[in-house]
């Protein structure tokens, strides 16, 4: 059914359609409306046969989900940013135990400085935890990916994190097609766990494993994610048959055939990038964009197939591995590594802590990639004047104080100074 609704509430309705049995809720901006939404559905009786548990922290939220999942219940939780870090130990644990928990991540920056706005630092912090990570481009895809996520998680017995850009998607009102219950039931069978806590058939789960077996355990986790590289497109085909629209998959290419410049990006920014691609195509530039839906598993072969004929690859990402550069650029570099005619890679860090990524800036960036290439990560729309003044000041003053506060002071000062 088509509805005009907030992204978070659309996700909440999608979760309810997946018939979760245990939901653990802890509020954190910008994910809060999702757990509020499912909470309302449970309290009103619209979502039956579901325990909604208000926990005291994100660490407990995922821990409750771990217990519920190990005991055979379909479990769901949602978090963002600091919340994901606070549950980090349980994030690894859920993956290690092979529990098919689905979690929404309302992507948000990580402090300090504390910042509630969108970027992908939180998802990147857990990219090696063993969870599959799917990124939604818009709210329709956010809805669809959650339905796919439960099936994917349960088929592989491995948790899935659905990444939905905070505010940009979670708080945006868009037209969304909410599926019918019968469609979801046809796509997603009831949870039939591989291993379960059962007094009639007692097993010990979560034992200690030493050097004699740890490598093999990790190898098999990696093997499972490699299996997901085949399963994710298959589930996407299945989804299309039942729901009548394409959604999910490993990645999507937009106007990349014959493209000399190909942009790689994840999440909601792709919408803006597509507009810029259209504009530049109209101006005669051969450019396209690849949307990565699946960040873990990372679709190395599929991405290489698309990028191998390009001259320039521009990675636009909302995260920074401090001291290295962009993690997505680094991963993409790995994809290109062994190509004979490898395209030149350009890395751009954009939209940190919620900074808008404008069409004008992207257009300049893509133009420069082809005509004035740069080394290392480029920080889109960096206020170089403020940064320069702060670097200069820190050089002169030994006890120079906190960077965040000083940058804010520089900004305030700069607003009173004439432009250089």
């Amino acid at each position: 059914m088509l509805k005009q609704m907030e992204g978070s509430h659309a996700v909440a309705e999608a979760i309810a359609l997946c018939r979760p049995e245990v939901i653990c809720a802890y509020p954190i901006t910008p994910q809060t409306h999702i757990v509020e939404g499912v909470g309302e559905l449970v309290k009103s009786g619209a979502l039956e046969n579901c325990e909604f548990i208000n926990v005291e922290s994100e660490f407990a939220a995922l821990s409750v989900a771990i217990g519920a999942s190990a005991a055979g219940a379909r479990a769901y939780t949602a978090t963002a940013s600091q919340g994901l870090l606070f549950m980090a130990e349980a994030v690894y644990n859920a993956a290690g135990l092979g529990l098919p928990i689905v979690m929404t991540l309302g992507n948000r920056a990580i402090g300090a400085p504390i910042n509630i706005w969108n970027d992908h630092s939180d998802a990147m912090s857990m990219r090696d935890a063993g969870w599959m990570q799917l990124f939604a481009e818009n709210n329709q895809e956010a809805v669809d990916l959650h339905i796919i996520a439960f099936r994917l998680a349960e088929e592989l017995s491995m948790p899935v994190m659905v990444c939905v850009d905070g505010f940009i998607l979670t708080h945006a009102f868009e037209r969304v097609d909410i599926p019918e219950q019968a469609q979801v039931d046809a796509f997603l069978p009831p949870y039939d766990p591989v291993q379960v806590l059962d007094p009639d058939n007692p097993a010990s789960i979560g034992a200690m494993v030493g050097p004699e077996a740890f490598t093999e355990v990790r190898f098999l986790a990696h093997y499972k994610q490699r299996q997901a590289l085949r399963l994710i497109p298959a589930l996407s085909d299945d989804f299309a048959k039942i729901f009548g629209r394409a959604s999910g998959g490993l990645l999507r290419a937009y106007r990349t055939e014959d493209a000399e410049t190909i942009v790689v990006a994840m999440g909601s920014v792709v919408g803006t990038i597509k507009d810029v691609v259209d504009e530049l195509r109209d101006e005669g530039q051969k450019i396209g964009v690849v949307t990565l839906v699946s960040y873990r598993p990372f679709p190395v072969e599929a991405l290489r197939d698309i990028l191998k004929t390009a001259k320039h690859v521009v990675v636009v990402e909302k995260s920074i591995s401090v001291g290295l550069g962009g993690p997505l650029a680094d991963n993409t570099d790995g994809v290109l590594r062994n190509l004979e005619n490898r395209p030149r890679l350009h890395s751009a860090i954009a939209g940190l802590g919620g900074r808008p990524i404008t069409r004008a800036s992207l257009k300049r960036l893509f133009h420069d990639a082809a005509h004035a290439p740069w080394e290392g990560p480029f920080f889109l729309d960096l206020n170089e004047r403020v940064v320069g003044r702060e670097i200069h000041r820190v050089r002169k003053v030994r006890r120079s104080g906190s960077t965040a506060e000083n940058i804010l002071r520089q900004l305030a000062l700069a607003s009173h100074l004439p432009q250089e």
Partner: protein
Amino acid sequence: MDDSTLTQQQKLKYYQKGTFTVGNRLVADEERSVQASAERSNALTSGHRACQGCGEALGARYAIDAAMRATGNDLIAVNATGCLEVFTTPYPETSWQLPWLHSLFGNAAAVATGVAAAMRVKGKKTRVVAQGGDGGTTDIGFQCLSGMFERNDDVLYICYDNEGYMNTGVQRSSATPPAARTATTPALGPEPGNVFGTGKFVPKIAVAHGIPYVATATVADLRDLEAKVIKAMGITGARYIQINVPCPLGWGAPSYDTIKLARLAVECGLYPIFEAEHGRITQSRKIRRQVPVRDYLILQKRYAHLFRNGVDDPRVQRLQAICDAHIEEYGLLGDDAEA
């Protein structure tokens, strides 16, 4: 004290005059302990890797066997990281005869909440026990524990209190008594051992949550421990039992003194044994034959610095004052006491 809250097991006096022998032979079949029964589940079966004389292994078997008896074996256990987890499950071996899940050090209470929620939603009657040492309970797991308490989730949490982080090599926990030497409170300097005026007694904090049932117990009183576990399994909601379990390694005592030390901890008043329901203390186990705390301390190397050169350190008297305060607070002297 309301006598009606006492179970038959607790009312019976099993010991003969002048001894501490508990004779099953003397009582009717139905009054015998769970451990005395050939039908006991042996939840924590032999072959595990605990040290000789481990109080925790003993306490866990007593407690889980009793809980399995009370639930007709329809029970799931969740375990915090710690000695109990490590010595029972060096995979592919496991000592557990019931479904058992270990997740992390600090989340056993929350994981148990999840298991209980799954049972409820699936319409199963299966009950849940969470267990951990004092480190996993009073320190790193405390937030999850308090959350489970205040939500009144249907979980019995059992803390095996050996008064320190024994698994990592005997460091201080918030349950380590004052003056005790640990690897992080060495017997050095002007105030050797653990500092007075620190630490917390979680059973009282559990009582403050107003949960249906809280008890302390000791491996020195098997029948009382079993009675409390069985009583707890008859109650729905959050329940907490903290069992004093001596650790020969961490306390610096011979393996054969585990039960003796557990008994002395009770008889000197340092470890009060009581029950509480819905925020109120309902009864305490009386001290049978009061002993000075010195008798308890002097058997343990962790207090050796209090008895150097044949002179008692003044801190012994400070510990005695703590015992005296417990005796008054919990009413530990009464009918059972011998002159």
